[in-house]
């Protein structure tokens, strides 16, 4: 008899967990809609956005640039060692550029962004919630969704595609340094091969579209996790972890779907 109830209890537990997930998803959609739609009634919106662009975009620049250079250099080295087996080292520029533009630029930027800016957003908003700054704002008649959340969302949406472009440019520069200056690939064929194979619409713009999608997903997850967290120090730490894990998984999963749609041809 006791056994039967525990089985039922477990099923009930599972059901409750499923309902919780569904409820959180619903809350997050309503949250996004309320934050984006409508205008702020209080404060200078441009000023607020500027502040967030600084902390989300400008401060992420260093990690993006440094990792971009190193990833470009590694790609060039690896590509060279594989391609030189077939005597086509000139294709190294093409390989580096296409890999960065189509995949690594948007994806690695999104992963780094989730770790660098996303976790900070979650922790900041979670802390505001636990110290009751959000409810105080509501108390004085300011909608925290408009005043706190919306600028952060927009800052993420704007800065990540730009960061992804910078990542790709810096990576290609790093790759050209390694391939041309160090490994001695002929500079003319390095660039002309790249320009012949890279198409502006198919490769560059599709990469930008990818990073726009990732920007929306990562920023949305980060800000929502902060807004929805348990207002305790433990809750904030769990929410921050969830931000990084969920955002990374969402980016990788979406990347597969987007790649299949954009470059699949099937």
């Amino acid at each position, binding site marked *: 008899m006791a056994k039967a109830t525990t089985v039922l209890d477990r099923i009930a537990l599972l059901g409750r967990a499923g309902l919780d997930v569904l409820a959180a998803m619903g809350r997050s959609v309503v949250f996004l809609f309320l934050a984006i739609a409508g205008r702020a009634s209080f404060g200078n919106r441009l000023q607020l956005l500027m502040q967030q662009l600084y902390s989300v975009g400008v401060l992420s620049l260093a990690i993006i640039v440094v990792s971009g250079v190193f990833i470009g250099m590694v790609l060039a080295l690896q590509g060279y060692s594989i391609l030189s087996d077939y005597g086509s080292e000139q294709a190294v520029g093409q390989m580096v550029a296409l890999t960065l533009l189509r995949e690594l630029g948007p994806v690695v930027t999104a992963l780094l962004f989730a770790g660098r800016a996303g976790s900070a957003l979650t922790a900041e908003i979670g802390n505001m919630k636990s110290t009751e700054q959000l409810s105080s704002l509501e108390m004085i008649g300011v909608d925290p969704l408009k005043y706190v959340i919306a600028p952060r969302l927009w800052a993420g949406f704007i800065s990540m595609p730009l960061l992804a472009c910078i990542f790709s440019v810096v990576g290609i520069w790093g790759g050209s340094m390694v391939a041309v200056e160090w490994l001695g690939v002929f500079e003319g064929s390095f660039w002309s091969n790249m*320009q012949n194979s890279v198409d502006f619409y198919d490769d560059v713009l599709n990469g930008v579209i990818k990073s726009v999608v990732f920007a929306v997903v990562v920023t949305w997850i980060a800000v929502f996790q902060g807004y929805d967290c348990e207002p305790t120090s433990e809750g904030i730490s769990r929410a921050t972890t969830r931000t990084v894990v969920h955002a990374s998984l969402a980016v990788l999963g979406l990347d597969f779907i987007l790649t299949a749609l954009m470059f699949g041809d099937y």
Partner: protein
Amino acid sequence: MKTRTLEISVGLFLLAGVLALVLLALRVSGLTVASTQDTYRVYAYFDNISGLAARAKVTMAGVTIGKVVAIDLDRDSYMGRVAMDIQGEVNNLPLDSTASILTAGLLGEKYIGISVGGDEELIADGDTIRDTQSALVLEELIGKFLLNSVNKDE
């Protein structure tokens, strides 16, 4: 003063991002602002287009003067029909010019090379280049070579 440095750094960041996109467009994808200038369409029929792809370049004397737009099979003649857009400023190609499918390097990509003919009449929009040379197919060459050496032995 503090907000001013913040605004400047944000402005620089936005500028850097846009500049990066422009760089990707111009330097990496080779998008030229003038690439949408006027071009004219020329067709050529090949026995075998083996490996030529759309967006391959069309060259003359090694200089790129256009690109391949479409490739399809002509149902009546069973030949491959290649449509290419030639830049409008190269409007003095003789009608009997030759189009041949060439390979960049031994294993490189295929492209079309046009060599000049001697005709007075010039190619216009929608014309067809009649004199064509198909791609070298390595397997056929090897086959012929083997056949030759067998014949010699007899």
